[in-house]
């Protein structure tokens, strides 16, 4: 026995540790359960998966929603821009198709300058302009056909056959072009374009430039080529080139300009060309804003910490009262998860008649903690003020009150009775409305995405004005709302 070596001791100890089964009757589940209730209390059953959106789900969902919205909006804007660009390039690159320029195009009815509505007046002005242009020879046939020949250059010869081109037609006057309007029937535009030097002595020709630019956009610029393409003269009409910009690229257009030989109206060419049209500013009414919002919601009651996140999802509606001030409301579905001390939920002992000495019912055990889940609709009513705007970025603050329309309450009570830990589930589906129950303060940042869409992130704090629910709890809520908003065009007007 005395020669027990270290190896023997180790071997015996290992064997004993492996095979010896101590009596475990001293262990009891109830004691462990109490520890578990304290350290890892059983969670209430999860609600419907749609409304119990966990952060790992709603976070990427919001990013995905924002990304898709941004892509769609940007892609739509790009396609529109690229289409316009292509149209412009086609206009510049392609020569005019005479078959398309037969004067059959539809155009908005011309706006007639009242001053020019008098045919006699218009004719007199035409005559005056012809006289003043000493270098030009104007001939006119009975059908209103006119040919303008620049004596100095001898290049221009135009021919038009159009009913509107009657000498007595007031619209035939170049002065009939009203600035800012897409003027005239095709015949009128032809006349405007073909009139060439005749136009240049007019003091106010901003309408021409506007008409040209409008024609460029609408594809009507080709109409000015008809006379320029006339085979009767066999020459390129430089005047028509000037107004029918589509015929040559810009550098060629400048190279092909006719010389000026003491023609006062010709001196105004560049002035006419460089003169920018006076556009009226267009005001678009974007006062109404609708949005889709979602985000996490953290709720605490008193000093008890919470390890669960609720969520908000809903619609928002805003209306701008002024440029910066707007009133906002909405309709949100909100789930709140929270832990509370048991005192607010402690059932009050029933009052017994005075002659009853002993209560019929045992008092309810002291409730230690309560895990609650409340589902409700929230209607906020807030005023928003945009404190900073730069480019497409807006910073704002928001304040107001929210009403809770409580729909579902689920509580798990934790308490001990006779040394045993218990959990007790309690549900309440009464519809309880709490108008303006919480104050709502938030600030946020809004990024314009274009096409009336915007994305905003808005941290918020909701502070209770009153208690709600079974425990009459005053809940503090904190969270972050992500919104995709759309501002439809309510109207346009020029100012």
């Amino acid at each position, binding site marked *: 026995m005395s020669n027990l070596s270290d190896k023997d001791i180790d071997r015996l100890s290992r064997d*004993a540790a492996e095979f010896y089964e101590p009596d475990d009757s001293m*262990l009891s*589940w109830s004691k462990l359960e109490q520890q578990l209730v304290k350290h890892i209390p059983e969670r209430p059953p999860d609600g419907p998966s749609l409304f119990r959106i966990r952060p790992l789900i709603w976070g990427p969902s919001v990013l995905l929603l924002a990304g898709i919205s941004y892509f769609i909006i940007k892609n739509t804007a790009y396609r529109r821009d690229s289409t316009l660009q292509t149209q412009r390039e086609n206009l510049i690159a392609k020569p005019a198709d005479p078959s398309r320029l037969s004067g059959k195009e539809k155009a908005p009815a011309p706006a007639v300058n009242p001053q020019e509505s008098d045919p006699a007046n218009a004719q007199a002005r035409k005559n005056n302009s012809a006289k003043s242009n000493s270098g030009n020879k104007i001939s006119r046939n009975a059908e209103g056909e006119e040919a303008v020949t620049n004596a100095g250059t001898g290049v221009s010869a135009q021919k038009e056959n159009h009913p509107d081109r009657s000498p007595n037609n007031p619209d035939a006057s170049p002065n009939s072009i009203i600035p800012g309007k897409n003027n005239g029937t095709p015949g009128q535009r032809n006349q405007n374009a073909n009139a060439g030097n005749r136009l240049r002595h007019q003091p106010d020709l901003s309408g021409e430039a506007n008409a040209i630019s409008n024609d460029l956009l609408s594809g009507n610029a080709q109409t000015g080529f008809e006379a320029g393409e006339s085979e009767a003269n066999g020459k390129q009409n430089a005047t028509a080139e000037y107004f029918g910009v589509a015929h040559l690229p810009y550098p060629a257009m400048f190279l092909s300009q006719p010389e000026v030989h003491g023609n006062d109206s010709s001196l105004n060419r560049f002035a006419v060309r460089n003169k920018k049209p006076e556009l009226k500013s267009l005001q678009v009414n974007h006062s109404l804003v609708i949005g889709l919002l979602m985000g996490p919601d953290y709720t605490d009651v008193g000093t008890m910490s919470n390890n669960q996140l609720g969520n908000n999802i809903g619609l928002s509606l805003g209306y701008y009262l002024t440029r910066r001030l707007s009133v906002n409301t909405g309709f949100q579905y909100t789930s709140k998860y929270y832990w509370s001390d048991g005192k607010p939920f402690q059932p009050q002992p029933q009052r017994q008649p005075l002659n009853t000495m002993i209560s019929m019912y045992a008092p309810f055990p002291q409730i230690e903690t309560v895990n609650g889940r409340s589902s409700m609709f929230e209607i906020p009513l807030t005023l928003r003020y945009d404190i900073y705007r730069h480019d497409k970025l807006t910073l704002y603050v928001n304040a107001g009150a929210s009403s809770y329309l409580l729909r579902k309450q689920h509580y798990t009570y934790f308490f001990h009775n006779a040394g045993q830990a218990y959990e007790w589930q309690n549900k309440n589906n009464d519809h309880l409305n709490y108008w303006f129950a919480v104050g709502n303060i938030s600030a946020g940042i809004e990024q314009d995405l274009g096409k009336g869409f915007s994305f905003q992130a808005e941290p918020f704090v909701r502070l209770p004005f009153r208690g709600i629910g079974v425990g009459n709890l005053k809940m503090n809520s904190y969270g972050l709302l992500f919104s995709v908003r759309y501002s439809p065009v309510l109207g346009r007007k020029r100012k």
Partner: protein
Amino acid sequence: MVNGNQHISALITGCRQNDRNSQKDLYQVLKGYAMKVCYRYQHNNHQVEEIVNEGFTKLFKNIHQFDEHRHVEVSIALKGWFKRILVNTCIDHYRKNASYIHGQVLSEETEKIADHGETGLDRLSYKEIIEAIRLLSPAYRTVFNLFVIEGMTHEEIGNHLGISVGASKSNLSKARENLRKMLTKKTDVKTYVEPIR
């Protein structure tokens, strides 16, 4: 065994969802094993129970870290993982109470406890050996358990207990010597008895 694995896997899944019934069932499965591990680290049965419950609480809290799909024998893998939790819990208890239990004076009562095992080496039961280990002082017992039974090195023991390698070796040597005396019925050996708190 497949059915046993499935049962254990189902219990683990339930424990992940914090289901009390699953926790209770897993507790019933593992409590004997937990008792076996912790019993030799503590002399006081109440503390054994405390450590076991603490170990189970840690197990249920961190059950999501255990991946049963990586193991063929889920039960064995779970026991191995649980054993590490229990041993670490025992070490934590030792370190927490180290300042208190160091320097305790052995009483005459310990000699009486050591006396009632009068069988020879060949007739020693596992219970007597384990009980002898439990009678060692906490420092000797812990080092002996970690080195001989858990297979740790002195460096690892030193790191876990916050002692030097030399102290670990010294404690192991003294633990063996005391154990040898107890097992060979040397009645003059002074063993440790847990002070009453």
